[in-house]
């Protein structure tokens, strides 16, 4: 992979909540424009912490994070996010007592002053997800889990990000919604958005991802293209149990 | 072992200092200063006993004091009961109030406990000023002075004798608190302070320990309040005497002294009251200094003067050790 094409480059990143034990231990990876990169591993392997370290929620102790040629290592999360990185955190992250529309509008925070852009983005979101149009005045907290996930995904897309970091999008969803979620993520990548995807549904991740990294105890133990990982999937998963 | 020997030596030295200086100086002004140092010290220590050891924010400590003071004064005024006995009676009345406050705040946490005690104290103050026929309200209640004992006069014209009464009260309270926090009970207090859930899965009954702490502290606050009434001679239920203003003064001394260290309160009391006496030319600046000191401590010395002393001691030990 050529550097010029890379949207996100992480080099030798180390981070931890304590000094002695690193939850992210010397991780290097790169994400090309428009590709989906999967991160798999057992619970506590450091997948979520890796995303947090990339965004600055967790301060890296060494290593670098480069986004579109710009060094963003240890930046405040809000600064990183306003550069065009969308982050879907684990668990639900809608603002429950704000309406659906207000949630979507908050997705446009960095571009809030451009009224016409905001309007267009809102319309685009409603066309794509008519359900949100229908319920745009209701409080986000009153939506079902699946609807909240749709809202979160559309909110991520509002400001036109070039990179999405998505953590466990299928957790707690019914099977048909899981498929829908993964479809939506693939659509993102078709539009040229780079995606880093964490999910415990390993088979699904291997299926949609162009490249997969397997993490164990904060380190990358294995990596390869989606197909390559798919072939060896049972052995990989056995290692989690 | 060496450390504890040093501690006893220090304790005795401080005791000697507090006992001897007013007597040697025999100066009414100095005695008055020492009285207010001891009063604020012991109240701040009691405040810290709740906050620093069990995370109970008692924002009504002024009102608790008022109840102790009024109980003792009213017993003497209406029923002629000796103020000596009143000291205990004041403590008991406040103990009941503390028990009540403890029970109703059991389910609450953090700032909610603070606000509940604050309004409970407001209630007490309002009630005291409203029961005009009984307490004389804002007109002020005359407090009879402590009767002579063993031929010594404890009237307000003999401040030195009153000082020693307070001295004894302080020593008793301090030693009790010290023993409690260094006993098994104190160990559990600290565990609950650090992690309530962690303590209860170890099998400790959090409720019982909280009530115990609250009642011990309240009893002593009442005793100190009763003494205070005898010392000032007239009781008026104003915020400056017994309300939010008084509570914030006590809180400031506890914070400046250092949370979670009882003796820190003595440092805090000496620092703030000493400072205020040194700058007595501009007496009005006293409380400004209090507030500024509080903000300063929060920003620069989160563990207060006691924490600073501990750091200094650690530094000295490090300097001394290599030469050995």
């Amino acid at each position, binding site marked *: 992979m050529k550097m010029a094409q890379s949207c996100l480059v992480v080099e030798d990143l180390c981070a931890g909540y304590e000094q002695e034990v690193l939850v992210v231990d010397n991780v290097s990876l790169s994400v090309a424009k428009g590709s989906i990169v999967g991160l798999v591993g057992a619970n506590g392997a450091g997948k979520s912490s890796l995303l947090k370290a990339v965004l600055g929620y967790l301060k890296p102790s060494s290593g670098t994070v480069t986004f579109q040629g710009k060094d963003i290592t240890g930046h405040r999360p809000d600064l990183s996010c306003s550069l065009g990185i969308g982050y879907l955190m684990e668990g639900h*992250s809608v603002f429950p*007592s704000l309406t659906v529309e207000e949630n979507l509008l908050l997705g446009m925070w960095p571009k809030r002053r451009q009224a016409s852009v905001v309007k267009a983005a809102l319309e685009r979101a409603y066309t794509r997800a008519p359900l949100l149009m229908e319920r745009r005045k209701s409080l986000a907290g009153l939506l079902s889990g699946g609807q909240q996930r749709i809202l979160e995904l559309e909110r991520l897309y509002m*400001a036109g990000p070039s990179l999405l970091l998505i953590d466990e999008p299928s957790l707690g969803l019914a099977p048909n919604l899981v498929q829908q979620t993964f479809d939506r993520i693939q659509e993102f990548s078709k539009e040229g958005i780079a995606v880093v995807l964490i999910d415990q549904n390993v088979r699904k991740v291997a299926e949609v991802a162009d490249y997969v990294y397997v993490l164990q105890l904060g380190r990358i133990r294995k990596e390869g293209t989606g197909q390559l990982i798919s072939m060896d999937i049972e052995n990989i998963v056995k290692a989690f149990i | 072992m060496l450390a504890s020997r040093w501690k006893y030596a220090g304790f005795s030295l401080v005791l000697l200092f507090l006992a001897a200086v007013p007597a040697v100086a025999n100066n009414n002004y100095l005695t008055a200063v020492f009285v207010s140092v001891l009063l604020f010290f012991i109240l701040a220590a009691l405040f810290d006993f709740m906050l620093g050891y069990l995370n109970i924010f008692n924002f009504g400590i002024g009102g608790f004091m008022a109840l102790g003071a009024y109980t003792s004064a009213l017993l003497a005024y209406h029923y002629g009961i000796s103020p000596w006995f009143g000291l205990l009676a004041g403590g008991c009345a406040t103990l009941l109030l503390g028990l009540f406050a403890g029970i109703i705040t059991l389910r609450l946490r953090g*700032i909610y406990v603070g606000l509940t005690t604050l*309004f409970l104290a407001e209630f007490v103050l309002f009630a005291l000023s409203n029961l005009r026929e009984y307490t004389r309200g804002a007109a002020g209640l005359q407090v009879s002075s402590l009767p002579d004992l063993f031929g010594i006069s404890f009237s307000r014209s003999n401040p030195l004798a009153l000082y020693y009464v307070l001295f004894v009260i302080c020593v008793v309270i301090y030693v009790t608190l010290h023993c409690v926090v260094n006993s098994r009970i104190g160990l559990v207090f600290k565990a609950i302070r650090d992690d309530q859930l962690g303590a209860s899965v170890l099998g400790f009954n959090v409720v019982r320990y909280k009530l115990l702490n609250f009642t011990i502290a309240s009893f002593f606050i009442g005793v100190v309040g009763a003494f205070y009434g005898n010392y000032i001679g007239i009781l008026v239920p104003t915020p400056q005497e017994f309300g939010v203003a008084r509570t914030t003064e006590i809180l400031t001394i506890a914070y400046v002294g250092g949370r979670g260290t009882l003796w820190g309160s003595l440092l805090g009391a000496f620092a703030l009251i000493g400072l205020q006496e040194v700058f007595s030319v501009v007496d009005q600046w006293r409380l400004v200094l209090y*507030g500024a000191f509080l903000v300063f401590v929060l920003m620069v010395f989160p563990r207060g003067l006691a924490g600073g002393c501990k750091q200094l001691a650690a530094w000295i030990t490090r300097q001394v050790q290599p030469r050995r």
Partner: protein
Amino acid sequence: MHFELLAHPAIVGQFIIDGLGRGVMYGLMGMGLALIFGIMGLINFAHGSFFMIATYIMYFVAVHLGVPFPIGIMFAALGLFLFGAAFERGLITPLRARLGRNWLVDGYVMTIGLQIVLENLALIVMGPREHGISRLIQGRMSVSGVILTNERILIFSVAIMVVATLAAFMRLTSLGRAIRATSEHPDAAMAMGIDVRRIYTITFALGSALIGGVGGLLLSTYPAFPTIGSDVLIKSFIVVIVGGLGNVWAAMIAGILLGLVESFAQGIASAGWQNSIIAAIVVMVLVFRPSGLFSKPISRP
């Protein structure tokens, strides 16, 4: 007890009008406190002192310099906005940065420190003298025996305006949305690109500006005086606790309720006991409904 007074419609009407008049003032006082608590979780013990500063600003701008009252009120609000922002940035932000999630207790002790400093500085600088005005506007009217001053009508309209403006700001502007989002889920707000530290500063400044404007508005009832703040603080606490800590709209309703209770209690019962009764009610609300009378109970996991 004078229950017989309740038989006269005009007297009852007067009680209601008086109660509403006071209640709206209490509601206005509580709103700034509720806003800051609702968004940041911080109880601002210096709230009353902010009110006190505002009354002095109003007095000097409006009376000494002869500036019209509405502009004086704006000056008071603006002055407190800047003061609040400076205090939050200078002292609270570093505290939060150092202590992380455990900053709240030290945070409100910090505001206690500020309150002590402000109140006593005012005592030194201004002296224990009241500086006040008799009326913002003159005139009164009488509707079937119930007397209504123009000033009361003015305060009432301003209250409605403030509530409406604040609601519009919170609902319709992107900054308002960002403030609400931050109070619900700060981490997710950061993921939207919102600078959460700035939101906190703005919130604190807004809450301060609110009490600042109210201080200016109420100068005729609450003349500038160094310790005027302690009464305002207690009233604000009552309103905010009864309404539900952090609930800005409920603070207004609770304020009106408090005003009505006070007005009827003073009219019917002998004056004085109302304070004890209100304190007792507040304690009961804290114990039995800590989330306030008008909010859903906080679920305790």
